């Protein structure tokens, strides 16, 4: 039937609209891609803009309010008094302690992460590569609280670590360490060293992944060339590998640093009674009811991270993410 029919009415060069609401919409999207783009962006931007940025703004606003010390009510007038309170010695102490911890945790994670990342990037192949990947990914995604709980089990006085050290006749070493002033305590689970270990454990995968990504991009023959030219493994590491891995380490340190700055659960469960920024925020907004001071406290990690990110960007860390 068809050949004659088709020949008699050739298809027009411009097709008519496909009809119906659905067709009209489809045509509109095709003709005005910007409209489609806007329509796609609107829901996520509205959500994040209102829920998230709006909340951050509310938080910032609160930090310029102050609390009336007698009634405990929040005085909704612009003032810098809360920031003045923030600069008290006790609070500066908290900030300094947290930043020191974050720096130490970052350093330790980098040191432990490097061999794992280097092995995975350079030597692991095929099956092993997948295994390494999962080996980092599974702990990364395991429940945060369960990981902390596991360390409570390990570090407890009657726990597996004490048992192991007793078997190895090394208990004196633990006791000597615990008797030290700042890092020690009654047992590891109530000492600053305990807090440190758990922080390193929980954030370590965040360091491994970007370092590995950076090392994957180092051509293997670069390392060979370095040793052909007479460099010792140590020199190769210092002059070739480390500079090339540095953007990855900086990228990883964004996570370890930022996560340590804001955490309040780990030092609450494993550690001393000395506060970290996160705990200070939590207790100010909870028991003390001083939301302005809590808000001012959160501005500290935001500012520190702002500078950190700025520095990291200059070192090219974002390309390694």
């Amino acid at each position, binding site marked *: 039937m068809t050949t004659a029919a088709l020949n008699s009415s050739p298809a027009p060069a411009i097709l008519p609209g496909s009809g119906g609401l659905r067709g009209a919409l489809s045509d509109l999207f095709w003709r005005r891609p910007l409209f489609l783009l806007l329509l796609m962006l609107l829901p*996520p931007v509205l959500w994040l803009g209102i829920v998230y940025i709006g909340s951050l703004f509310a938080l910032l606003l*609160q930090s310029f309010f102050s609390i009336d010390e007698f009634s405990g009510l929040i005085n909704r007038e612009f003032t810098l008094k809360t920031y003045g309170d923030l600069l008290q010695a006790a609070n500066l102490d908290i900030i300094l302690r947290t930043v020191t911890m974050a720096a130490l945790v970052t350093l330790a994670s980098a040191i432990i992460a490097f061999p*794992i990342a280097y092995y995975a990037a350079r*030597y692991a192949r095929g099956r092993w590569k997948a295994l390494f990947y999962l*080996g980092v990914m599974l702990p990364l995604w395991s429940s945060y609280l369960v990981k902390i709980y*596991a360390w409570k089990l390990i570090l407890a006085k009657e726990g597996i670590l004490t048992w192991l050290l007793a078997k190895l006749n090394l208990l004196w070493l633990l006791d000597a360490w615990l008797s030290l002033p700042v890092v020690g305590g009654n047992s590891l689970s109530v000492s600053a060293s305990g807090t440190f270990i758990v922080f390193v*454990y929980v954030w*370590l995968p965040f360091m491994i992944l970007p370092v590995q990504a950076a090392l994957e991009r180092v051509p*293997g023959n670069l390392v060979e060339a370095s040793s052909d030219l007479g460099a010792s493994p140590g020199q190769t590491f210092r002059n070739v590998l480390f500079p090339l891995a540095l953007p990855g380490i900086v990228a990883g340190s964004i996570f370890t640093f930022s996560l340590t700055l804001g955490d309040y659960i780990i030092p609450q*469960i494993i550690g001393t009674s000395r506060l970290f920024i996160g705990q200070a925020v939590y207790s100010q907004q909870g028991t003390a009811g001083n939301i302005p001071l809590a808000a001012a406290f959160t501005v500290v990690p935001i500012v520190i991270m702002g500078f950190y990110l700025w520095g990291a960007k200059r070192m090219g860390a974002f390309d390694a993410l």
Partner: protein
Amino acid sequence: MRSDRGQSAPLGLKIAATVGLLFLHLPILLIFVYAFTTEEKSFVWPPPGLTTQWFAVTWNRPDVWQALSLSVRVAAISTVIALVLGTLCAAAVSRTKFFGRETISLLVILPIALPGIITGIALRSAFSLAEIPFSFWTIVLGHATFCVVVVYNNAVARFRRTSGSMIEASMDLGADGFQTFRHVVLPNIATALLAGGMLAFALSFDEVIVTTFTAGQQQTVPIWMLEELIRPRQRPVTNVVAMVVVLVTLLPILLAYYLTRDGDQIAGSGK
């Protein structure tokens, strides 16, 4: 780094990498042993005996079931919201270059780039300024916000791999926009979305820091666990719940990995 295939690693490196991996895994394995211990009052090692009775005890605890049900409902709804928002955002960002594109990706990443406590207290202070009472939906609001980025990361990686000419070909062959989406785009990104959804579910199921600020008196599983960690009531029950939580979060991660392993390099590195 293809040239050094077959070359074996120096011994020191092997040892350091192995020790590092053991450091990452042994603590989690310990949880499984403790779930069977007969000891009730302390964390004593080695366990004095092994028993399965705590599974039955946990099974009959209504508070555990309530927390579990709340967690699953919150995670499911947050995942759905994150899937819609994350996919839309990824599609927009990867299809076209437009002014403010970098800002959009920053906006999506910000909720997990800033410490959770900031997201938490920001939401809390917004709720208090707007006088919104705590409810199921205040938890969802927080969770969906930081889950968007996981879906977004997975979807963006897949969109980058999918060639735009396939969409043009579909349109040339006469499919309208909706047909193209249904028959060309969706099949291409489906596994990435599934993976992103699984990761978002796991992330929400496990979240505690933001939740403590948005839940009020309600208990999700992580909040229940946090209470037990601070004020232990029945340690063996906590052990069993911890083990179940490990299993519940690991399955979606493994699935997500198998769904995206060929090609997208980031199955969940964006936590």
